């Protein structure tokens, strides 16, 4: 498939991204670069200096809401990509309301309890919606441990064991690997090449 044809398909597709930190911001930019039609972003947080070791933000965006900063960046890369930016903390009700019309949903939360909440919500209330989740990307190295696991329409990407904490911070290279693998699985689904 030539890029023009890929772009034509993707320009009609909508991807939801829940959380715009390390995973969400990088996956959003990767999808914008290939010409996705619309991104629905949600995050309650603002950009901090400590985010810049992995998240797709800039020094002059510190203090800005992450979703609006990302919206500005995406406009500079892919003006044809529409961005719905929601400054909000998601819960089951708002997840269903915001993402029910998406073609794919990317779970890019930081906290494990939020990951559990969105996966349960999607599996129960949005059963036809493919969900891509990132689990285990702290630290560095160990490329060979990062993999995709599929169960039904749920795709889990990461090493499954590297939890982020003070001694094991998430860093740009490994977060970048996982977030781009998430975007790559989204393309597999959107371009109709995923295995059922």
């Amino acid at each position, binding site marked *: 498939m030539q890029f023009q044809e890929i772009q034509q398909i993707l320009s009609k597709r909508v991807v939801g991204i829940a*959380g715009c*930190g*390390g*995973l*969400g911001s990088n996956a959003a930019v990767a999808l914008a670069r290939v010409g996705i039609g619309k991104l629905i972003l949600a995050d309650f947080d603002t950009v901090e200096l400590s985010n810049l070791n992995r998240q797709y933000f800039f020094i002059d965006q510190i203090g800005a809401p992450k979703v609006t900063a990302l919206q500005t960046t995406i406009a500079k890369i892919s003006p044809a990509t529409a961005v719905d930016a929601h400054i909000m903390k998601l819960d089951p009700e708002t997840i269903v309301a915001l993402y029910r019309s998406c073609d794919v949903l990317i779970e*890019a*939360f*930081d*906290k*494990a*309890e939020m*990951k*559990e909440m969105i*996966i*349960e919500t999607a*599996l*129960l209330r949005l059963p036809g919606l493919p969900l891509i*989740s*990132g*689990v*285990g*990307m*702290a630290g560095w190295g160990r490329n060979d441990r990062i993999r995709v*696991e599929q*169960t*039904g329409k*749920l795709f*889990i990407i990461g090493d*499954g*064991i*590297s*939890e*982020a*904490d003070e001694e094991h911070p*998430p860093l740009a290279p490994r*977060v970048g690997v996982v977030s781009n693998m998430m975007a790559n699985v989204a393309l597999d689904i959107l371009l109709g090449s995923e295995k059922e």
Partner: protein
Amino acid sequence: MKLTLNHVQEDILTEKMLLTINELRALKKFSFKFLVVKVNGVLVLRDQYDTVTVKEGDFVEIIHLISGG
């Protein structure tokens, strides 16, 4: 009890014919707090971990969710 746990065939050492999700977690020493559990492809919610059971031959997935993103 022979079952498929996270895509691996396992023989769980137990006298019981049925194990609840929490009993299975304890036997396997699965200590992670946040999970997605599916039995034969059906989602099991957190408040069902003491009531929903698995039996011989079941296909069980217990996915651990950890922080970082």
